[in-house]
């Protein structure tokens, strides 16, 4: 096997994973922007998306065009409930307290997932089964859905934040919460909306990440999504895109190189995210596209 010959396949796989990471990373960004907290339960939104899609489509037998919106809406409601029951009551306690509370929520969601869906893995139906052969690579048809829905989501999120009144108000909260409340923006309402949006994006990531979903997938996707958000520049939509693609590609190319050229085991795939995160935090803490935190005194 030669490394270069395998590259198209690595790149195709990397882009497919990268798309999922982008969706998760955007969820981190949206919540961070309007509330200033990192929501460590973001990965569990993916878990709910995937497992609810399984329950609705595979066990209850609903058609996919109905099951998917229902799974997304239910995940969004879980996000809203989390904001109202956990983040809202802690609004005066400071960001750090709220962040620690989201870790608690993540553990709770995961345990709940384990009770409701105890098996190690559930098969989430693909939108369209089968594979497509490209020169040098084979990709599943699902990949086209992943790619298309990611582009659609990124575009929608971008347009929402830059061209709608509600989106601009949410951005205003991230730029200056104090001034946002002065012009009459209900800052806590924006916090609620951000959790709804982030949960829906996370749910989407979880359910298009076919074919398998499990109660433990949240940690994995949460870490990858968080890494992508930080690598690209926390809070920045295009940063999430950059970070997700960089991480997705490196995760395929580096282990591929190690295995094929050096003959080392591929067990190191997940270490790539950790190393990338540490490297970016050391060398460019504001992220690839970040402009850094400017504080005027």
């Amino acid at each position, binding site marked *: 096997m030669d490394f270069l010959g395998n590259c198209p396949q690595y790149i195709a796989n990397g882009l497919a994973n990268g798309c999922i990471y982008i969706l998760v990373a955007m969820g981190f960004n949206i919540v961070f922007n309007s509330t200033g907290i990192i929501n460590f339960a973001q990965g569990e939104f993916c878990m709910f998306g995937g497992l609810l899609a399984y329950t609705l489509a595979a066990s209850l037998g609903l058609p996919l065009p109905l099951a998917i919106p229902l799974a997304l809406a239910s995940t969004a409601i879980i996000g809203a409930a989390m904001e109202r029951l956990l983040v809202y009551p802690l609004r005066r306690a400071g960001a750090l307290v709220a962040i620690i509370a989201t870790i608690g929520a993540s553990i709770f969601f995961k345990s709940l997932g384990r009770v409701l869906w105890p098996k190690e893995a559930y098969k989430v139906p693909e939108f369209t089964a089968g594979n497509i052969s490209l020169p040098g690579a084979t990709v599943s048809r699902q990949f086209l859905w992943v790619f298309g829905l990611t582009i659609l989501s990124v575009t929608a999120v971008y347009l929402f934040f830059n061209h709608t009144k509600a989106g*601009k108000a949410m*951005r205003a909260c991230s730029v*200056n919460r104090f001034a946002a409340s002065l*012009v*009459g923006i209900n800052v806590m309402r924006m916090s609620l909306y951000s959790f709804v949006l982030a949960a829906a994006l996370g749910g989407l990531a979880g359910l298009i990440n076919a074919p398998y979903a499990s109660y433990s997938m949240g940690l994995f996707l949460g870490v990858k999504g968080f890494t992508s958000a930080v690598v690209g520049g926390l809070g920045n939509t295009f940063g999430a895109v950059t970070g997700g693609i960089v991480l997705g590609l490196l995760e395929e190319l580096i282990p591929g190189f190690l295995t094929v050229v050096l003959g080392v085991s591929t067990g190191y795939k997940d270490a790539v995210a950790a190393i990338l995160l540490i490297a970016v935090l050391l060398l460019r803490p504001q992220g690839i596209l970040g402009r850094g935190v400017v504080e005027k005194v």
Partner: protein
Amino acid sequence: MLEVKGLSAFYGNIEALRAVDLWARAGRITTIIGANGAGKTTLLRAISGLVPVRYGEVRYVGQNITNLEPHRIVKMGISHVPEGRQVFSSMRVEDNLLLGAYLRSRRRSGGEIKKDLQMVYDVFPVLEERKDQMAGTLSGGEQQMLAIGRALMSKPRLLLLDEPSMGLAPLVIRDIFACLKRLHDEGLTLLLVEQDAQIALSVSDYGYVMRAGKMRMEGEARELLGREEIKSLYLGEEAVEGEEGGHGDKI
């Protein structure tokens, strides 16, 4: 128009405002002067719902608005230009102004909002020249104009201004106050907080003097300008500044 009675507010356990009374009459410019740390900013923030009121009452056109949420108070017609301007620095100037009209429905009053935007541009032509720039790239004076313009976009009846002169060159301060005077002539009621007592009292109708969280003096602005103790304490001599240390010092 606005009446504050026996208002007390705390920062932690420190009493920042002690039983403050204030009356801002409709159609007038009322000014609160006082040194740093006297509690002027806290008072304005308590009025707009940004700092909780522990005791006392804030009434606005006959209604009790004590401790209402900030967005409700904006909706009732009170707009607050904060200390240090607080513009949305990484957003366009025009978006800053439109966010000022956040609570007004675009469907019902879209035309009016456009008219008000043009009115703000007429008062501050420099904002129209820079409407596509990021607000953070404006000079201090321009940001102050933007903060005032943003506050006007909610169509307030009462405008609260916190230190509009802060950090600005004397010529710019004169411009800003000329604009405030013009807004007042068009029917807006102003409640102004200032360290620069000279310029504030010279445009005002009525004045209060605050010190260590309490109202110490009040009177017609012209009469206050003439009082000896005001002249020595707040007009000119900077030497007294150090006297006002914490919020709660006994004098």
